[in-house]
């Protein structure tokens, strides 16, 4: 199967960015960004602090319209008052008088109605330059013509300053638009000319970037866009873009304000944004492609994992589906239809002849969504009986209606709805996987849906499996967080408060194995890195009577290279296996061997001494015959013993039986029971037994629990602090546990009803004992409980003797 490991090459990044750079630059050269650059300049001009104002080298004298002034006298007067250069911008003066000159600049053509540029008359190239407008009040200082006539000029006002003499506009005439004012707020021609003159005198023309430098700046902006997209997450990319644009804008503003250089800000932002969006588009397309590939991979992978190989053969699908339905649901009759995209149904499997057409069924099904009428079995299946109940359902996979099924069950035999739904889902999945146009190959969206459906089924199944494992298990991720804890582990933790799996694997390992933290960490690392399970003897606090084995193993590491974009859980699994039963059984086997050896030694003793007796020449003939007979019997009984042991061992554990029984040392079983019951009860037990506990058929741990339950029951149902007697009686064919509690007072009727009846009981004491008594009977033993007025409570548990 092809795995997509790297994003596809949708286009070559450097080439596209170069094209973008050339395009933006070309547009810049063709004044494509003039409008926005001018707007930027206007905005800066209106808001930056001017460098004109009081120290302006030029005063503006506007002659009122309609006033005829003599230029010679005017210039003479101004010069007399101390004016420096006098510039005339009067339309009716072609030749300047002595001491004055004509205005050295000419306003360039307005751009969209706004005057921004002027041309130096002395410039042979006639280049239109940007005037340095400054908005800070009081702008260009003015000289009033009336003041001049009345000779009321402030002393020194004209000193070292030039004067621009212009004519003011008639009152009704519109002014000129400049960067300084918004639309509708205009200034006079003289004032615009004064700005141009001040700029020329100061030489403070706004410098515009040369084409070569523009190209460089555009390239830098594209580079910024590339890095912004390359090193940020898609979710915040747009915000990063906006922040960088704002930064560019701010830098351009500062440079213009302080250095009088107008950067090609529009081209830069366009280049930066263009690069960002192009790259992001490429990334999105690559991710979409990757997602599609991943969903395809997951879908295929899961199909392989969860479908039998036979399902790859469409001809077998129907037969397998039929088997699946019959085996799991066990319907009386069934019919399965596959539906294509056009809605046509095709019968693929059926156990009986079907009466109603599938299209009709589907219609009824649609109607039933509203009124939910049952569809009679007889209408669906030709030969259905009146007692059958029909279940009709659409089969839906990944949101697609892929088929329809009808199942009939005898009344009362209908499986639960969860099982029906689960099987309908499974059948739909199989049909979909084998249809000519499976839904997961139609479009990426369907592929994703299908994959997710597969994933949910698969993961859900695994989780369910883990939850219900018969060993206690907890799985930690590499951060030490418990990501999965199964039911048995939770139950174990509920019984032992010391098991705090939430505190991480090191704590758990320390609690269960007694290792210190350093050792625990070392073993955890080893288990993960070496990927080899480690096993430790473990003990669960508060459950010391039980024996556990703890297994540490790595999770999610094996299986070779994984798809880089598929999340695989990695971590450590800790499993606790309760081997109490196994260890007890093993101990029982050792006991059997030991007892057998003892018995044979006992028999050998008879032979040894018997042979010596037979050698006695003084032995009477009848006695000799008697001894010989006895020894022959002894030989037979020893042989029989071996046969009995072999036979009993074969009977002990019968494969296939739901309840296993073993030869159990009854005295040891009592000893274990005594360690498992509360101390205050244990101290009140008088235990009488032979030196060697006979072996009997039972299960070691369960027998101890049963004895413990019986002792607890007897102790808790008698006068406080009264003693309870437990006697182990070794009989030829049986071993009996006799528990007597003389001071117990329990109505006989209740005793029988609750211990041997089927009445539901809430008392855990009664319940545990009842379960134990039932176990004794299932091991082939007998159980009885009596209340006698003279001897109190009398419990007898008899087990079949092994040896």
């Amino acid at each position, binding site marked *: 199967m092809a795995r997509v490991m790297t994003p596809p090459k949708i286009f070559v990044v450097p080439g596209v960015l170069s094209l973008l750079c050339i395009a933006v630059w070309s547009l810049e050269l063709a004044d494509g960004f003039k409008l926005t650059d001018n707007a930027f300049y206007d905005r800066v001009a209106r808001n930056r602090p001017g460098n004109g104002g009081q120290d302006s080298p030029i005063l503006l004298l506007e002659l009122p319209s309609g006033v005829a002034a003599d230029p010679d006298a005017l210039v003479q007067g101004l010069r007399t008052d101390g004016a420096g250069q006098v510039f005339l911008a009067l339309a009716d003066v072609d030749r300047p008088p002595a001491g004055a000159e004509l205005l050295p600049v000419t306003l360039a053509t307005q751009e969209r109605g706004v005057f921004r540029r002027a041309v130096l008359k002395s410039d042979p190239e006639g280049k239109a330059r940007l005037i340095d407008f400054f908005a800070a009040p009081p702008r260009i200082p003015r000289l009033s013509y009336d003041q001049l006539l009345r000779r009321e000029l402030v002393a020194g006002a004209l000193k070292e300053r030039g004067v621009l003499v212009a004519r003011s506009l008639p009152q009704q005439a519109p002014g000129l638009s400049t960067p300084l004012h918004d639309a509708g707020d205009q200034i006079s021609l003289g004032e615009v000319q004064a700005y141009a003159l001040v700029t020329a005198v100061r030489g403070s023309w706004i410098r515009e970037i040369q084409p070569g430098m523009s190209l460089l700046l555009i390239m830098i902006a594209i580079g910024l866009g590339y890095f912004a997209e390359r090193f940020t997450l898609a979710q915040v990319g747009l915000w990063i873009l906006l922040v960088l644009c704002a930064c560019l804008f701010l830098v351009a503003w500062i440079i213009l304000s302080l250095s009088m250089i107008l950067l090609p800000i529009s081209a830069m932002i366009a280049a930066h944004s263009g690069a960002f969006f192009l790259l992001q588009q490429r990334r999105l397309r690559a991710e979409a492609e990757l997602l599609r590939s991943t969903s395809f991979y997951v879908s295929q992978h899961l199909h392989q994992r969860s479908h039998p190989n036979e399902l790859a053969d469409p001809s077998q699908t129907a037969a397998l589906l039929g088997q699946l339905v019959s085996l799991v649901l066990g319907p009386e009759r069934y019919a399965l239809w596959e539906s294509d995209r056009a809605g046509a149904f095709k019968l693929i499997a059926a156990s009986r002849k079907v009466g109603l057409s599938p299209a009709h069924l589907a219609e009824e099904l649609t109607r039933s969504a509203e009124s939910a009428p049952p569809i009679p079995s007889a209408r669906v299946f030709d030969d259905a009986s009146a007692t059958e109940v029909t279940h009709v359902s659409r089969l839906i996979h990944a949101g697609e209606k892929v088929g329809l099924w009808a199942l009939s069950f005898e009344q009362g035999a209908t499986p639960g709805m969860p099982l029906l739904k689960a099987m309908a889902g499974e059948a739909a999945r199989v049909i979909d996987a084998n249809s000519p146009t499976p839904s997961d190959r139609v479009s990426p969206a369907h592929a994703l849906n299908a994959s997710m459906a597969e994933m949910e089924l698969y993961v859900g199944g695994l989780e369910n499996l883990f939850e219900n494992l018969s060993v206690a298990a907890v799985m930690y991720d590499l951060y030490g967080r418990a990501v999965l804890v199964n039911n048995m582990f939770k139950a174990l933790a509920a019984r032992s408060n010391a098991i705090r799996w939430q505190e991480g694997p090191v704590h758990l390992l320390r609690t269960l194995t007694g290792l210190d933290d350093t050792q625990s960490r070392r073993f955890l690392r080893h288990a993960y890195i070496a990927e080899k399970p480690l096993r430790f003897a473990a003990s669960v606090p508060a459950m010391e009577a039980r024996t556990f084995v703890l297994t540490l193993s790595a999770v999610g590491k094996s299986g070779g290279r994984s798809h880089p974009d598929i999340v695989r859980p990695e971590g450590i699994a800790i499993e606790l296996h309760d081997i109490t039963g196994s260890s007890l059984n093993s101990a029982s086997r050792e006991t059997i061997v*030991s007892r057998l*050896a*003892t*018995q*044979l*030694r*006992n028999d*050998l*003793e*008879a*032979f*040894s*001494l*018997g042979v*010596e*007796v037979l050698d*006695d020449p*003084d*032995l009477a003939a009848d*006695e000799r015959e*008697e*001894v010989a007979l*006895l*020894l022959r*019997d*002894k030989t037979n009984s020893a042989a029989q013993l071996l046969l009995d042991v072999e036979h009993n061992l074969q009977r002990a554990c019968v494969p296939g039986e739901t309840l296993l029984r073993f030869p159990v040392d009854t005295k040891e079983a009592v000893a274990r029971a005594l360690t498992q019951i509360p101390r205050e009860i244990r101290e009140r037990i008088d235990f009488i037994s*032979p*030196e*060697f506990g006979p072996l009997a058929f039972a299960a070691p741990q369960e027998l101890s629990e049963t004895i413990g339950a019986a002792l607890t029951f007897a102790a808790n149902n008698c006068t406080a602090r009264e003693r309870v007697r437990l006697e182990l009686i*070794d*009989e*030829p064919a049986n071993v009996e546990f006799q528990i007597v509690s003389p001071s117990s007072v329990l109505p006989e009727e209740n005793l029988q009803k609750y211990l041997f009846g089927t009445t539901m009981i809430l008392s855990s004491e009664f319940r545990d004992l009842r379960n134990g008594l039932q176990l004794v009977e299932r091991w082939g033993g007998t159980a009885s409980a009596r209340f006698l007025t003279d001897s109190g409570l009398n419990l007898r548990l008899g087990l079949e003797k092994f040896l």
Partner: protein
Amino acid sequence: MTSGKKILLVDDDAVMQRVLQLWLRKAGFDCVLAEDGQVAANLLHAGQFDAVLVDLMMPIMDGFRFLKWARQEARISTPILVLSAAANAQVRQDVEAAGANAVLSKPVQSRALLEALTRILE
């Protein structure tokens, strides 16, 4: 020296009872039989014996309980020789602590049995 000494033989195994009885007779002992500890206790309480030869594993009252009864309850000082097929070190220690004069593991050689009996009767 052992001639005429009266031995109480306690064993539940009929074959062992008879074989030991014949062997003891051959060795010059008088022998009285008991099939378990309870019977032996009654006999010991009622009569006079020079020694008791007792098996450990018996029904009703086993050899260990008989030994404890004899030493701790009845305060009887009659020498007691314990025969056991399960006389490992722990059992031997327990039995001796309970008051047995000697412990022999089955199968026992007749010579060892005779020596042990002679020793406890001294």
